[in-house]
């Protein structure tokens, strides 16, 4: 066997028994699997972090997607935070706005880093760049945030799914929010087990989330689901840090997510045939974007 862990249970017990953070176990596994040097692996994650940083910056300046469905909400949220009137708290709203910023850039065919997918790419960086202002992490700690997120995502991808088409939005934004919660816990000084609890608490609250993109685009409702995913990640991390535990163990929560995904009808798995995509407005937007004859199978010739 060339892997160290394939379940959260194994991951946490490795981290506990060796007294290492989860990020370190992920780095060691990556060295083992890819036979690349530790330096090379960290350098690649550093580059991914830079891409995330640039996407957030770009989104906060305001972008508009080609369809016109999304763009500009990250700016609105930053203006609202600056007004000092926020009810849910500046840190949460900052994470929300930065998650939205990334997804708005993604929808506008901009460059992003998928975490774990492009449609869910806002949550991990959004929460990271928001808690950065509170926890003042080093660059290394920020890179480790991504490795910890990745460790949990690795388990989900191999035991369930990270694809909306296969498992609904719970597999994409659900995974992303849970991964982020686990990473926030580590950065805030929590234990590996608390990371796992945060993951479970958040994932349990993303279960059943359907993938119903309007016009089949990763815009509506995806951008706002990233926003709320970021908020849930922060709250879930706080709950775990407060000592709240999940009654259902993490691996079983992941297993439940997988089973729910498999029993979801295909209309709710990224086909744009059900849910919000099938609402009168959803259909009208689709017709507006692709023309009324989209239902007629077409052949595009160059």
């Amino acid at each position, binding site marked *: 066997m060339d892997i160290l862990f394939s379940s959260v249970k194994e991951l946490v017990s490795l981290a506990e028994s060796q007294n290492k953070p989860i990020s370190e176990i992920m780095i060691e596994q990556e060295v083992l699997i890819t*036979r690349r040097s530790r330096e090379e692996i960290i350098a690649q994650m550093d580059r991914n972090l830079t891409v995330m940083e640039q996407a957030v910056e770009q989104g906060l300046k305001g972008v508009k997607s080609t369809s016109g469905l999304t763009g500009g909400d990250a700016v609105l949220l930053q203006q609202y935070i600056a007004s000092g009137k926020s009810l849910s708290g500046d840190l949460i709203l900052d994470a929300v706005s930065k998650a939205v910023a990334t997804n708005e850039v993604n929808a506008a065919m901009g460059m992003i880093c998928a975490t774990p997918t492009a449609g869910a790419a806002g949550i991990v960086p959004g929460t990271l760049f928001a808690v950065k202002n509170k926890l003042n992490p080093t660059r290394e700690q920020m890179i480790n945030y991504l490795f910890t997120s990745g460790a949990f995502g690795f388990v989900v991808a191999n035991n369930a799914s990270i694809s909306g088409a296969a498992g609904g939005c719970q597999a994409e934004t659900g995974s992303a929010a849970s991964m982020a919660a686990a990473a926030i816990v580590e950065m805030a000084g929590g234990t590996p087990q608390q990371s796992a609890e945060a993951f479970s608490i958040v994932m349990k609250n993303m279960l059943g989330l359907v993938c119903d993109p309007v016009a089949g685009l990763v815009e509506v409702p995806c951008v706002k689901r990233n926003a709320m995913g970021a908020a849930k990640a922060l709250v879930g991390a706080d709950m775990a840090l407060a000592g709240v535990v999940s009654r259902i163990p993490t691996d079983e929560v992941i297993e439940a997510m997988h089973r729910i995904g498999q029993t979801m009808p295909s209309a709710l798995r990224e086909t744009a045939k059900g849910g919000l995509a099938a609402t009168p407005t959803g259909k009208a937007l689709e017709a507006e974007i692709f023309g009324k004859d989209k239902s007629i199978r077409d052949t595009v010739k160059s």
Partner: protein
Amino acid sequence: MKFRSVFEIIGPVMIGPSSSHTAGAARIGRVARDLFGRQPEWARIHLYGSFAETYKGHGTDVAIIGGLLDYDTHDERIKTAFEDAAKAGMTFEFIPEEEEAEHPNTARIVIGDDKGEMELVGISIGGGTMEVTELNGFPLRLSGHYPALLVVHDDRAGVIASVSNVIAEQGMNIAHMEVGRKEKGKMALMVIEVDQIFDETLINQLQSLPNVTQVSTLAN
């Protein structure tokens, strides 16, 4: 394990909007081009499931063409792939299919030029990761995780042994191997994933073996 590297989870760095519909699609196109070994002159792309439903909005079409032009997932030129294809002299056609495929994100790519044709089925399994499930009619499982050799040969006794001998002589370890044939005694295919990056010497040696008709490679 479907996913091996943390960079399949935190990554790829890519041009939006969808990792499975854009980045995964670009990778399927690029693998097809790699296995074909040169720039195809024409491409016929059949899309199934979610690919067929949403390919325009997700840029699946430009991504696959970008891949066929050898662009990586984060290459900004994906956006202008259609125009670039015209400049490169490649014509293409997209055919959305009603038929249900085994995987919701499936593309069947038929490419060719005056020297030959190739047909490949690729699936995008999430987060930009893809697998090749069929090549020239042979079912297979090619993950793209490892450097791979594809050997087309005549179905004769000893060919598999002679190919694996050449690989062993180079000190290389085989990670995964599949063999298949359409009909006894006719054309057969070997897919060999190895642990190390291989060089031209190995490919030349394999190509000169009796009963071997074609060797294609896929570097990791």
